């Protein structure tokens, strides 16, 4: 049912084991015929480790969704999409939808190195142009995602941007597009518990007001977000997370 109901920008929450944590993950793709959804997860902590350790045929204990507001898909003309690291995964359905809505889509993908770059082939299918940036220059060009993006902005008229990646990347993407006054959406990956508006762990300041990422977002106007507060809040359970990884 999630496969059928999901829209670009929606996420799910899943849980593994009786004492498992609720993990929010953006839906990358779905197959309505088979009733499946695609999620992409990077093995970085205790819970993502548990998910990655599952074998084909194993069960996820709980799965709920689709949650969050869907991306506003329309046809402004030219879209510049920026995806960093594992943020490329949630960007993919948005690129696909903007392309299908008739936009010209230029996609800039960035990763630390060639091995960590995902979904390049899929992105090329729905992008008029794909620019690849790596931190170490092992693939594409060496440099930051904002370097590649700024080149495009200088070269041609960009009507709208969408940027998804680590919070720090989104912060600099927002600063860049603000300089050029281009409306920009970002999808935030704040800490969540229930994901249904109940707890407020995911609160973020947008345009001076506290919003809940899970029900008001996860996508917001990048130019209105207090990224420094968000970066701070992402560290709320750093000690506990470090301990869990050691277990």
């Amino acid at each position: 049912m999630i496969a059928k109901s999901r829209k670009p920008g929606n996420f799910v929450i899943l849980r593994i084991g009786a004492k498992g944590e609720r993990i929010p993950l953006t839906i990358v793709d779905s197959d309505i015929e088979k009733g499946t959804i695609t999620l992409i997860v990077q093995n970085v902590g205790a819970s993502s480790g548990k998910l990655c350790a599952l074998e084909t045929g194993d069960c996820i204990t709980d799965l709920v969704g689709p949650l969050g507001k869907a991306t506003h898909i329309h046809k402004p003309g030219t879209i510049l999409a920026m995806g960093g690291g594992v943020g490329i995964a949630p960007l993919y359905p948005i690129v696909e939808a903007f392309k299908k809505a008739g936009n010209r889509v230029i996609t800039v993908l960035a990763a630390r190195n060639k091995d960590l770059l995902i979904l390049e082939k899929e992105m090329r299918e729905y992008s008029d142009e794909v620019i690849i940036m790596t931190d170490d220059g092992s693939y594409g060009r060496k440099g930051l995602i904002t370097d590649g993006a700024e080149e495009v902005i200088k070269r041609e008229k960009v009507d709208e941007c969408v940027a998804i990646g680590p919070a720090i990347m989104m912060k600099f993407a927002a600063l860049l597009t603000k300089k050029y006054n281009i409306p920009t959406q970002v999808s935030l990956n704040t800490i969540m518990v229930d994901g249904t508006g109940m707890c407020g762990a995911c609160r973020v300041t947008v345009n001076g007001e506290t919003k809940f990422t899970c029900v008001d977002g996860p996508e917001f106007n990048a130019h209105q977000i207090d990224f420094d507060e968000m970066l701070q809040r992402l560290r709320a359970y750093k000690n506990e997370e470090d301990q869990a990884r050691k277990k």
Partner: protein
Amino acid sequence: MTDYSEILKQERNAAWRAELRNAVPNKDRINIERVHMTEAEPHERIKSQTCEVNKGLTPDQARREASRCMDCVNPTCIEGCPVSINIPKFVKYIEAGHFLDAAATLKEFSALPAVCGRVCPQEKQCEAKCFYTQKMKKDPVAIGYLERFAADYERESGKIQVPKVEKRNGIKVAAIGSGPASLSFAGDMIKFGYDVTVFEALHEIGGVLKYGIPEFRLPNAIVDVELDNLRQMGVNFEKNFVVGRTASFEDLKELGYKSFFIGSGAGLPNFMNIPGENLNGVMSSNEYLTRVNLMYANQSDSDTPVLRGKCVAVVGGGNTAMDAVRTSKRLGAERSIIIYRRSRDEMPARLEEIKHAEEEGIEFMNLANPIEYLPNAEGRVAKVRLQRMKLGEPDASGRRKPVPIEGDIVEIDIDLAIVAIGVSPNPLIPACLAGLKMSKWGTIEVNEQTMQSSIPEVFAGGDIVRGGATVILAMGDGRRAAASMHDYLKNRYNL
């Protein structure tokens, strides 16, 4: 209601009731003192999140307490009960020693007697209307303790009785949310013969009974038994299902659902919008309690973390504030402090909860209101600035309004702040239903008698209508909604 008072009269006239009444003169009944609930010792109980504070009555205690009830001709206690339990009947069954019959009587009216016996504010409801309170100025019959006793006795006896249900009529109805409003609705609708499915967004059924109320007040295992009872009556439960998102109302109609009850609760926590409130270490009571109660974050094998403060400030004076502050003590806080802007007399929490908190060493800073949270070098909360208050004239709620004492500001050192100042209706479900009439507070507007919304096949009750109330008021709404949905469907489908 005429029907119900006739039934009450007939039942009161039953031979066994008359015999019991005559067995003990009223003047002897009056002289019995109200029973004292046995409680776990404060220094013991604060070591465990799951050690229930109230230990329940023994059969002897229960029978003696039940014998205080004079089986009034006009039982006003029932008027104080939002689900209209036939209180004298179950109390008299206890006096007679027929404990299972007492439990069966409770189940005719309430889907959750073991829950209500623990968390209902009886002192404001049935017990406030008891003859002893009203006319004699004495302590009321301990109806709440007796309710709990009967429900616990039945569960522990292993002879759990499943209430009778009507023959299935094949009509599908849905309850959205699985808290007390929906469970009460589901219990009545299944008795009327409908196919009932309860949809829950979280991975556990029970709503606030599971994520909100801590286990030292309401053990999860007790809730599970009541849920199992509903399951045996035939209620279906679908967890991990957000109606409006996982499937739309239209999708559900296509699947055959004819009518809906929205009991999705007041999930959205309120904040004060003061500086520093988004610092790490400041969170809603919903977040704190959910991490502990639903996700078991206090247990070492849970993947969900929780911040354990050494010095914890909980802002608010309601039951949720008491639940949070007492939880923090159990999680090892050295100081756990309630910060409340009025005085103890105005606290909305039950007296019993306040008393238990005091016994457990909770500090109370009343007549103080946070105005700012201040961070340490790592950006975590380190202090709260408080504005001292005094009480002025009564406000709209009838309670004396707190007013700031100018210039009287104090700072206290804390490492965790929990905001428990109330909740707002969760917009998630109503937002998915076009044409549903909402109030300016975000609650669903319903006809107060029938609980029917602006969409004829949609009914609603509990906090999504009230904005923040009690378990039992939500259950009363669920019952009324079930009765009127039954009428609506009977007319519509010629049942």
